[in-house]
């Protein structure tokens, strides 16, 4: 299986990074630096150019450097996908996002956003186990995107139709003449999204359950099941929307639908959110991330680029060790950030040779080789 490799990365005006030009190695890239010097921002830049999104925020406007108003944020990368080398770039100007693939605007955003699979592992992802459904929905959608399940188009159309219905309710009330049309489209695209998510959940569940067994205490098993919010039949879904117009108007959004889906995680039949210990939460998160890497690799027949932000600060010793064992087998490109490279050195021994590792230091948004 070949691997996706970012050969160059060029960042301009993104948070505290004014100009970064990086030539990463094909395997491990360790980026060290003190708190607040730009480690996460660098990973964010790479994620942005690969996916057109940020893993930290849904508001891309936040990436514009506060110190330089009017500056154009842009990230460019040359990527070897194992078959050929291409260039991707994303520019942000205010709320506008311009993306180019080999210098050309892609016909569909999904084409661009799925070309270079990336998997992130950051401290905030502990929410995958402890937090609300939103993080788990995003996981399902990322997997669906890379698996070519048409989830992005379905999701965009679903949310447009939902907002149109909501506005019709607000401006013309629950008997507005066009509600049946918007509701029909919500159901059409909502079911499309739900099918994609069910397929991704099924793929993730098998891999995550297996991974969990390898990490957690013996005898403890975890289950992962897609829990759609809306009825899965078109007729029933349509009737649900119709009957809940008054309530949805008051709530400000639909009471049922894919925007409220979840991937239910249970430990011995009980919802993990309520019973899992800290260590078990971490094991669940790690299992889901391992499953994500596994499913995306298999779907694309290529190793995704891994971005590990501040990993050793979040995981305990044995889990860090499990992660490094996995990274050793991965044979893909990995970016790792840390405030304490010396701690990493200890984990490194026995898993990966130093010849495959390239070290960088970031200080005040400026990066140099260590």
């Amino acid at each position, binding site marked *: 299986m070949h691997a996706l490799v970012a050969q160059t990365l060029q960042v301009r005006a993104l948070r505290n990074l004014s100009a970064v030009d990086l030539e990463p190695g094909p395997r491990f890239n360790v980026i060290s630096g003190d708190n607040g010097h730009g480690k996460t921002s660098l990973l964010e830049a790479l994620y942005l150019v690969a996916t057109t999104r940020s893993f930290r925020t849904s508001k891309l406007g936040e990436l514009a450097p506060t110190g330089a108003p009017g500056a154009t944020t842009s990230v460019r990368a040359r990527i070897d996908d194992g078959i050929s080398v291409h260039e991707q770039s994303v520019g942000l100007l205010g709320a506008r996002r311009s993306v180019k693939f080999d210098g050309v605007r892609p*016909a*569909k955003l999904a084409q661009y956003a799925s070309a270079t699979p990336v998997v992130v592992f950051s401290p905030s992802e502990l929410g995958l186990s402890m937090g609300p459904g939103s993080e788990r929905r995003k996981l399902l959608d990322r997997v669906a995107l890379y698996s070519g399940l048409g989830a992005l*188009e379905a999701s*965009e*159309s679903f949310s*447009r*139709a939902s*907002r*149109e*219905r909501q*506005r*019709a309710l607000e*401006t*013309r009330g629950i008997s*507005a*003449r*066009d509600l*049946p*049309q*918007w509701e*029909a*489209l919500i159901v059409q*695209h909502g079911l499309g999204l739900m099918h994609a998510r069910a397929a991704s959940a099924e793929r993730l569940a098998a891999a995550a359950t297996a991974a969990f067994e390898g990490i957690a205490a013996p005898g403890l098993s975890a289950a992962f099941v897609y829990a759609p919010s809306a009825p899965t039949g078109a007729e029933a879904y349509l009737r649900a929307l119709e009957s809940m117009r008054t309530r949805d108007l008051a709530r400000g959004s639909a009471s049922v639908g894919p925007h409220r889906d979840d991937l239910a995680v249970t430990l011995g039949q009980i919802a993990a959110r309520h019973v899992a210990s800290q260590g078990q939460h971490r094991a669940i998160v790690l299992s889901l991330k391992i499953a994500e890497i596994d499913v995306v690799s298999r779907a694309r027949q290529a190793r995704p680029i891994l971005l590990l932000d501040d990993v050793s600060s979040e995981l305990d010793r044995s889990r860090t060790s499990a992660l490094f064992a996995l990274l050793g087998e991965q044979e893909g490109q990995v970016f790792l950030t840390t405030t304490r490279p010396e701690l990493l050195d200890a984990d490194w021994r026995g898993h990966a040779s130093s010849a495959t590792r390239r070290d960088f230091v970031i200080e005040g948004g400026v990066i140099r080789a260590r």
Partner: protein
Amino acid sequence: MRTRRIVSLLARLPGVGEKTAQRYLLFLATADPAIARDLGLELAQLSEHVRPCERCGNLAETENAGVGAICEICSDAKRDASLLCVVGRVHDLIAIERSGAMRGRYFVLGRLLSPLEGVGPEDLPIGALVDRIREDGVTEIILATPPSVDGEATALLLKRDLAELGVRMSRIASGVPHGGDLEFADPITMGRAFFGRQNM
């Protein structure tokens, strides 16, 4: 200043920014003066002689100011009057014409259903469309609004509102990229979308 004024007028055209407007002005001021003069004369009379067609909303020309304009397609006797294609905007009509797939006539809605953009069912010219269908004895309607969410909703609404007229209705196939724009579809894709249309 005269140059400033012209640049700011040019910059109001779609797709033309300050820089391009400046380039146009420079060209017009230094090239053969006949170009600027002819352009000026034509533009001065544009609103009198080029107007939306009274019957379909397409661009139409007329020599007599003040008299209703009828476009070339509506006045072409070889066009099949019983076949009517409903589009969102004139751009879409032009894209379909370029594909050569349409032998009937058109009706331009001028907008798509979109509460988010302040367009409700009452803001669509459905009454005028019904009149047109009755007057021309239309027997088949092709709904060619774009394959976006708003375009689909518009088509669904028209399907319901026109049902009682008992005419055959079809929807262009979604060969055009989903969420896409008809305008950017090439003639071959457009032709395919047209011939692959589905009964509704």
